């Protein structure tokens, strides 16, 4: 598996074939399209996402504004694209941070064991008792609402998941004979971690991480929705939904309904990617749903 991956690393054609064999062609295309929309979209659709133009306020979708305009006359399409980029960046970064810290903590408590494992394990359980939303609310109060608080909340509440995956892998590796053999041959702890532990946990962590992105995007949007996430005028999907809410009962739906489709798309893609990866790495369903 590792060799195969190293061989195909710099060969796009070979990589694409591997993706196809894994049954992940569709979802990979979806990801590429989403990233293209988020990063190239604003270059094509050059309306400003923050330019206030009260004369154009609350206009229904038209050719000039395909997604309509909001209460300040800002172009909803431009804000939608800005929101896509923001969700992607904050979601992915916070999950990467959580995965990295979680892996370090998980391997430490797995290796050290005993009392440390017990205490840190309970602390991690304590964090698990907090949904990301609650943690985000508290952090938003503590350090001020914004992308940082939202991302931190997602990262902190995510850490236990990765720590658990890695810890259990460390514990099972410790019992394996080939690790004993390695140690008897004088292999250092570092060697065992790099050559055996990291390759063994990568799959599980990757699956967890792509499902984690889904969770992160939902949590960030939820914080934005209650007004504690990314602050205006920065375009953010959750906040856009709130801003357009008051117009909903009078039938002006586009301001709050359209951003929701963006969240739905990004979350769905992340879930599908995670599930496809899991099915590929582990066809017999050992990894948790």
């Amino acid at each position, binding site marked *: 598996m590792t060799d195969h991956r190293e061989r195909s690393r710099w060969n796009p054609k070979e990589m694409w074939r591997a993706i196809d064999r894994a049954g992940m062609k569709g979802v990979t295309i979806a990801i590429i399209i989403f990233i293209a929309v988020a990063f190239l979209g604003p270059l094509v659709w050059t309306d400003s996402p923050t330019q206030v133009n009260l004369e154009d306020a609350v206009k229904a979708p038209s050719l000039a504004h395909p997604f309509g305009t909001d209460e300040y006359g800002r172009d909803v399409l431009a804000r939608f694209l800005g929101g896509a980029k923001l969700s992607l960046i904050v979601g992915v970064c916070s999950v990467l941070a959580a995965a990295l810290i979680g892996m370090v903590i998980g391997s430490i408590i797995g290796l050290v064991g005993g009392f440390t494992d017990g205490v840190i394990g*309970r602390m991690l359980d304590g964090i698990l008792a907090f949904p990301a939303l609650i943690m985000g609310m508290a952090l938003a109060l503590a350090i001020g609402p914004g992308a940082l608080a939202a991302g931190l909340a997602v990262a902190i509440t995510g850490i236990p998941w990765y720590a658990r995956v890695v810890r259990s892998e460390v514990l099972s590796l410790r019992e394996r004979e080939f690790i004993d053999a390695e140690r008897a041959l004088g292999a250092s702890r570092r060697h065992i971690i790099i050559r055996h532990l990291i390759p063994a946990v990568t799959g599980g962590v990757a699956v967890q991480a792509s499902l984690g992105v889904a969770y992160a995007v*939902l949590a960030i949007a939820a914080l934005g929705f209650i007004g504690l996430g990314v602050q205006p005028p920065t375009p953010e999907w959750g906040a856009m939904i709130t801003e357009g809410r008051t117009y909903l009962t009078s039938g002006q739906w586009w301001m*709050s309904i359209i951003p929701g489709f963006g969240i739905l798309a990004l979350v769905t893609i992340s879930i599908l990617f995670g599930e496809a990866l899991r099915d590929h790495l582990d066809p017999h369903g050992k990894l948790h749903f």
Partner: protein
Amino acid sequence: MASFIFKRVLATVAVLFFASVIAFLLLRISPGDPARQVLGPQASAQAVEKLRDQMGVNDPLPKQYVDYMGDILQGDLGISWRTRIPVKDELTTRIPATLELGLYAIALSIILAIPLGVLAAGSRRWIDRSSRVFAVVGLGTPPFWLGLVLILVFFTWLAIAPPPFGRLSEGYLPPPHVTGLYTVDALLAGQINTFFNALAHLALPAITLGLPLAAYLSRIMRRSTADVFRLDFIRTARAKGASERRVMFRHAMPNAMLPVLTLSALYFGELLAGSLLVEAVFGWPGVGGYVSESVLAQDYAPVQGAILLGALTYCLLNLGADLLYGVVDPRIRTSKS
């Protein structure tokens, strides 16, 4: 068995301790001055300082924590500085609203998920495919947005749903208090109109809250049914000539339901967090709405109370599930991890 129970209870207490420390610290390190919030911007510095002393905000953090825990253990969750109502009283009046919403949401999701999961595990591929689409879309839909879509369709466009505010329409009085669940109380009092009105107000929020859960549970049910399908007694039932439908619903379904029921109980804690958003969308007078209002007003005590309530619910449900599994499956209570 006794040592297994002891260990699990001890672990739960430890988790609750850490949760309470986190809840306490997160809100104490926030920059806003609660005394200034209460007195307003015009109050003198001395008055603010005096109130800070009274509130105990000037004490060292460890002392504040000990005082705080002492109060909690006596059942005192503090007073909301915004409304001057004790948090405990406010929570007591609001818990039934959240509970009623949560119970309907869970019931709805189980009713949807179990047949869907069983059908998906059956032999027809297109059913499995569409149930998977439902599951992924259901999990990917932000609940607050789904609520708004439902309001748009059923209230604004079709005008068949009641206005998205509160538990009863104007002109209806709450039924005499027995359980606090309006639908149950209305039936007990024989007020059929009130019952249907309460039900109509519950419908959209319960769907909003229940649909993502239904999506999740339907996948669990599918896997669990597929596992049961491989067992011998299913083959026996088929050999005896039972129809495929009978095998599915009479033999496989009851046996596959257990994990779904456990998981839906565990999910109740998560529902509390979800209710925070859904209650905000539907103006539902439950715990969630209380929390979001308090957070925005930097009102410490209600937020802490609600966080502890959530953590407690989560821990107790987990503990209950663990102990139950320990009773059912001896391997669990002897394993080290």
